[in-house]
């Protein structure tokens, strides 16, 4: 059965009442390559999070060595990640060229 609403069911004027409803829309299917986190090399500088146009880098709270809390990179949200590779290119660990904190691999179809 169609989930599309009838004209009577719609609020007036085309207004969208649910903030951020696009989060339900999958753009991950656009991807041909995907970033993968290598947490053993990650310095959690959050550059990938800052540069991700899709807000697809998921952070989590954790403790720094001095006992304070801070954000850490947790994972990539593949429901939204379009595989542009910006995070991989801008990762400062990757830029040093020794190891990769973010890999970039062919996505499975």
């Amino acid at each position, binding site marked *: 059965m169609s989930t*599309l*609403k*009838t*004209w*009577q069911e*719609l*609020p*007036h*004027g*085309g*207004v*969208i*009442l649910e*903030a951020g409803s696009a989060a339900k829309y999958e753009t991950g299917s656009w991807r041909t390559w995907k970033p993968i986190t290598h947490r053993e090399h990650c310095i959690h500088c959050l550059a990938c999070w800052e540069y991700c146009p899709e807000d697809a880098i998921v952070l989590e709270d954790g403790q720094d060595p001095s006992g304070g809390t801070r954000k850490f990179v947790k994972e990539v949200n593949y429901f939204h990640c379009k595989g542009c590779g910006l995070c991989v290119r801008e990762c400062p660990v990757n830029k040093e060229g020794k190891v990769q904190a973010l890999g970039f691999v062919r996505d499975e179809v």
Partner: protein
Amino acid sequence: MSNLTAGKPKIVPITGAGACAQAMRQINPDVVAAFPITPSTQIVEDFSAFVANGQVDTEFVTVESEHSAMSACIGASAAGGRVMTATSSAGMAYMWELLYVAASMRQPVLMSLVNRALTGPINIHCDHSDSMGARDAGWIQLYSETNQEAYDNLVMAARIAEHPDVRLPLMVCQDGFIISHSIQTMQLEDDKAVKAFVGPHLPYHSILDTAKPVTWGALDLQDYYIEHKRGQEQGMRNALRVIQEVSDDFAKTFGRQYNLFEDYRLDDAEIVLVAINSVAGEIKEVIDELRTKGEKVGLLKIRSFRPFPYEQIGQALSNAKIITVLDRSASFGAHGPLFTEISTAVYNYASNRPLLMGHTFGLGGRELTLRHIEHVISESRICLDKGEVGNRQGMWLNVRGDKS
């Protein structure tokens, strides 16, 4: 009338534009955004003085164009405000794109439109090419014969436009110069009575409500556009009922009864003229004169052109034998907009088949005198006697040159 609830009104001499400015002061909108254009300028000039003197709570946005005026009005309306503007002619034409946006976003923006010819050649005087061109924009259009009607329509406008079953923008039209600049005496109602009648504005999903963030003006693709347009159409259909309800309440409060149209000596009329705005006054005078001679003539004056009350008008014209429609605008290569609506109403809803004739008059402020109206009626009589309209169809009245 003794059972009126309003406070004491004043009888004042005032121009049509001045009367609308007074209505705006009494309505006290949250935002007015307007740009000066003749002949609507006095409305915003007077209103500016009310702002300057602290007589209103309004934020007056002195925009750099009418396009921005309508844009600001839509923004302010989406922000939960009661919003008004005033314009004419090319000013409204410059708003064109946003007229549609206001209607499709269901923003009950109120406009005082002073009808003026559209440019080509430039002309500042009255005709209805501006509002008639905008008839498909999705705005409610109420027309006004006199200063009093322009004022009364504006006092009723907010309650019609903002009604939850309607939620559509509304323009109150009056004839440029003929009404906007002519001083007539009229009844200016008590400020408090108007305020009480108009009531508070109830925002609909305000963009300022950060606790419930909404998205206004999203893109519709093939899967939703037509559903939204169907909903918009329903607002217009509901407006027919709401206009009458608000008008009836206005009559109870202030004593002047308005309907979707005015039937003037229509009951037994064989020849019926149909017209809009100020020319109705002259037509009434001619009708009164001819009635003393036993001529069965009447007038149907449109108040609500959008929505158009087809059924009621068709029924009201059921006894007519010939209907002559006077359009103060031209739809080049077609009959006038009022004529086509009347034809539709009569064809579908009148119980007889009267002759139908349409003429164009008054473009760019060209006068239509009592003598011209008498001529129109005598021509209608000739057609009625012959049983056909023939080559009298589609005349341009009071134009120099041979009829061809």
